[in-house]
């Protein structure tokens, strides 16, 4: 099942930046993505068919997910094979007067630039609270 589109999330949150973050999390941290990433780490460059057969997935689902991972910069395709382009994905959720999110792609933990995302879940939480509140009324 594909992750919600960026446009879909942008409409929901009315915030492009927020939509981008949610989409990244949806794609990077979902179970199918982790399985695919695990496969690529173990097997190296692989075709869509190899990935699908190796993980017992439908090729359409595997291809869709690989394209999504490619869109967020985690894998790359060349001549019909997919390669993981990151050695490490760090996603940190912490408490800081609300939820704070940090994420890093690439594997260099010291170069973490997640601070810029601080307060992201706080903002998300506020929006969701608002939605729930309106629904209750």
């Amino acid at each position, binding site marked *: 099942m594909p992750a919600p589109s960026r446009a879909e999330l942008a409409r929901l949150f009315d915030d492009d930046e927020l939509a981008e973050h949610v989409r990244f999390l949806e794609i990077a941290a979902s179970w199918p993505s982790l399985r695919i990433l695990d496969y690529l780490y173990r097997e190296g460059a692989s075709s869509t*068919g190899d990935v699908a057969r190796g993980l017992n997935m439908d090729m359409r689902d595997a291809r869709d997910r690989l394209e999504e991972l490619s869109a967020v910069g985690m894998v790359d395709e060349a001549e019909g094979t997919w390669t993981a382009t990151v050695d490490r994905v760090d996603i940190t959720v912490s408490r800081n007067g609300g939820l704070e999110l940090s994420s890093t792609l690439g594997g260099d933990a010291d170069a973490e630039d997640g601070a810029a995302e601080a307060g992201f879940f706080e903002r998300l939480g506020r929006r969701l609270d608002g939605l729930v509140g309106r629904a209750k009324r």
Partner: protein
Amino acid sequence: MTSNCSVDRDDTANTVTTLNSAPAGYPAEMADDLISDVKRELESGGNWPYEVGEHRFAGNPFAEKWPDPRLFAGYEDELRRLRENVQRNVNTFITGPFGTGKTILTKTMYAILDDVEGYEPVFVSVQKGRFSKAMAKRILDELDEPVDASASQADLYDDVADALEDRYEDGVRTVVFYDEVINGSDGTLRQILHLQRDVENWEPVLVFNGTAHMLDQIHAKIEPLSDRIGDELTLAGMDVEGAIDLVNKRLRYYCAESEWNDEGDGCAHGEGALDPFTREAVELVHQDVTPYPRHIRRECNEVMEEAAKAGRDTVDFEFVRATLAEEASRKLENLSELSTDIVTFLDGNGPSTANAVTEGLDVSAYHVQESLTELEKEGLIRAGEGARGIEYRLTEQASRELSSLQQS
């Protein structure tokens, strides 16, 4: 272009145009080429020839069943094992569901033996009923022996045995391929096998065809004679590399056959090249159908037809995906009542055996099997070995389309 046509008027003043030979001095081959091309275009529905990149296909490379032994693909191990069995005089039963490639495997072996000195292969399609006169005549024909049309069935059988024995004495090894043996009665099967008893030191290679549900039946039929069975080759379908090989060989064969460039060799496909298909596209076809050569060829035939119609430069993953989706949707909408029930049953219950479907729908086993075979041919369900025997499940594509049809 009227010089190669004549216009005749009949008594009722209707105009009749016929194609005549070209007049003297007219480059006849030009007109012939054009006429042949237009005729072929008409016959093919206007989509062919399909020119793509450095390739040209006069017709759909997947339309013909099996025009040439060189198109054999996918069962290399089985072909080698059959070769060993033939050399060792081991009776071999080749089994597997419809479309797995049993006949192609045996015809390939036949073509090979036909080309090897010291062997004389005979190919016989078994007909319904007892060991018939027609079958004996066919064997004698294949052996280039005279056939006495007025001879009795017993005499013809003796003629066959004599002919085989003569060959054995002359050092010629005769290998008889019996195709579609399932058609034969118990008596036919026994008589086929008794030929061995009547011709000393000679053993035919036998081919048994049958769907999964027929296999038990076949084994029951031949059990009393099972000591004469040396080996059983069961064909279960092609792996991805086999499918890639099948597609490559078809494309190369038909591209070369179109003899379209100045040198007349026409084909620029290298070993393993799949143009205009991408490898991913072929893999998707392989994933979606039960991977029997017949099913893969049929599906590629449909895809290639659509590609030619659309004049595609590449038949890629997305194109195949869209084509399969459209096709599955159309097929689901046109299913018979029983097939619809089966599809709905499999959707709700997951992979199921033919018996489970029969019990679940409370209909005759025969009709269920017929429908399952039909659905499998259409690429809507896929058969596979499961914990309880052969299980059928919806293909992913069928499942998706069924769900969107149900929603709409």
